[in-house]
């Protein structure tokens, strides 16, 4: 108690303190989406992925016009030219077609199919899952039985059967991919709907007089948006994979059409002699899939901090 002698008596006068001071929130409040953007920005992989995706989308439009060739003109004088021969940056194929032009055009077609399939997935999935979750009860029960059966049929088989029946093309391939692709989306939406219905905070919001519209816009949409965005980001590389896969087993686009799958299949046939014909489309497809996966990982972490461990 040596220090106590040095203390002056007026230190012992009552202090006027506001007890609520401790409850002030010192940090500026950030909205959910601001927080998402902040978390997303710190993820280098996701930023790189997004940049590559943007670059490739731009290139898929600009690339084919960067030299003077088109995708289908055959020229038997310049068959199987090596890469970087003049302005044939990626060389030419066995028909003398310019591979640079075909690669970027093919990337565009592949991306188009993937985006179309993802769009169909979301549209069908959100509608089906929303209706099923919103009505619940008997409607939900019947809709879920149907979903279960559809879910247990391997998508690979449905896709192959569909394309045997329909002539392969951009729209048939996208349609075939989304025949099963919408199911996970519907599940996500339904699960969120159901969860939301039973959630205490929704009950609390209702008790406080929030309208259905407000509950939908303030609670349902933010909750369901995240998982949907993430699911779409992962659905795109999967669609790109399947498009290429279908070309490989003979169900791809018909010539002279080009997609990454068609180019890979053509390249594979001449792999032992002209490996570069496979190399460029392989690099492009791998980078696109990698970028979407990195972006998806980043989005998932940013949108759902609980998942981040």
């Amino acid at each position: 108690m040596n220090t106590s002698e040095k203390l002056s008596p007026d230190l012992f006068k009552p202090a006027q303190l506001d007890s609520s001071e401790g409850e002030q929130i010192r940090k500026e409040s950030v909205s959910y989406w601001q927080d998402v953007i902040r978390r997303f920005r710190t993820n280098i992989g996701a930023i790189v992925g997004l940049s590559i995706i943007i670059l490739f989308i731009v290139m898929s439009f600009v690339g084919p016009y960067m030299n003077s060739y088109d995708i289908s003109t055959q020229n038997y004088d310049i068959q199987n030219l090596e890469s970087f021969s003049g302005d044939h940056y990626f060389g030419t194929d066995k028909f003398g077609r310019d591979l640079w032009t075909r690669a970027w055009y093919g990337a565009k077609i592949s991306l188009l199919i993937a985006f179309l399939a993802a769009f169909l997935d979301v549209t069908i999935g959100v509608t089906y899952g929303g209706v099923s979750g919103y009505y619940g009860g008997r409607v939900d029960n019947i809709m879920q039985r149907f979903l279960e059966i559809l879910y247990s049929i391997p998508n690979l088989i449905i896709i192959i059967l569909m394309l045997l029946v329909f002539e392969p093309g951009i729209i048939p391939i996208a349609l075939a991919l989304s025949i099963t692709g919408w199911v996970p989306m519907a599940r996500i939406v339904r699960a969120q709907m159901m969860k939301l219905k039973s959630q205490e905070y929704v009950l609390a919001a209702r008790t406080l007089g929030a309208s259905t519209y407000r509950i939908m816009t303030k609670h349902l949409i933010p909750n369901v948006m995240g998982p949907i965005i993430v699911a779409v980001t992962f659905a795109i590389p999967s669609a790109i994979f399947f498009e290429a896969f279908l070309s490989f087993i003979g169900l791809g686009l018909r010539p002279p059409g080009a997609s990454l799958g068609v180019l890979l299949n053509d390249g594979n046939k001449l792999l032992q002699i002209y490996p570069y014909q496979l190399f460029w489309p392989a690099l492009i497809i791998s980078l696109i899939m990698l970028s979407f996966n990195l972006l998806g990982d980043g989005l998932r972490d940013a949108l759902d901090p609980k998942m981040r461990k």
Partner: protein
Amino acid sequence: MTKVLDVKDLHVSFNTFNGEVQAVRGVTFDVTKGETVAIVGESGCGKSVTSQTIMRLIPNPPGFIKEGQIVFEGQDLAQYSEKQMEKVRGNDIAMIFQDPMTSLNPTMTVGRQITEGLIQHQNMSKQEAHEKAIEMLRLVGIPSPESRIKQYPHQFSGGMRQRAMIAIALACQPKLLIADEPTTALDVTIQAQIIDLMKDLQNKIDTSIILITHDLGVVADIADRVVVMYAGKVIETGKLDEIFYQPKHPYTWGLLASMPRLDQDDNTELLPIPGSPPNLLNPPPGCPFAARCPHAMKVCTEQMPETTEVSTTHQVACWLDHPLAPDVKPPAGAVRGE
């Protein structure tokens, strides 16, 4: 009286994204043989961190012991290696956790969860451990232990699971049992049973207990001594009677006044303590309770009061105990009638 545990000036911090959180800031207390010490305080006051630090269960990183000693039977556990700690945990010091629903491994039989500690520490054969486990289950009051031992936790009710947890903890007859809010997750009727069980077993196997709780009713029921913590510091400590009948710290008054009592009129209101504890990322230089204290003085916000002795067993850290301070009486609701 021999000291089983002597915690001296313990500091525990966590490195977080925002900086160092000083969860425990100089905690000192001891536990003697056969004694029950209750650590009370509100959520986030550092009581659970203190208890887990004694067991060295704080994940490192991010948590670490910054300073201080944890002397258990003459050895400083703060300096122990992980290997050395493995011999202490479960054998000399055991722990019961708050939520019996999640604290048991769902895919392992209750019996195996009891026997594995015995086999680990006591060199028992499987058969011996099995018999001991049945005995333990019987001891904690689980009917037909022979069949229960083969069951999985989900086949037990909440109260039974906590009994099983106690059986696991006491299987090796530890010298010290740390119970971290053992009754918080249970129904009120079950709470009383568990507390009675702990008291009963303490007599049978002569264990010291550290009870972490925010429930003063439980404290009154079982504790010999009480340590009151606030914002990572011990602000008052004393025998049960001293804390309940002669509380010195305004925070202890607040705690007592916010607890319902049988001898009160029905219309006496419970007094909540306004405000909330300080942020331990950046703790205030003075008394952490000053901002919420109705008797705060200028000095309270500037300097941390030293611990003064009210009696040999009763210490408090409050400027009101200083000779220069005005004489403040505890509010009527806080003092127990003799």
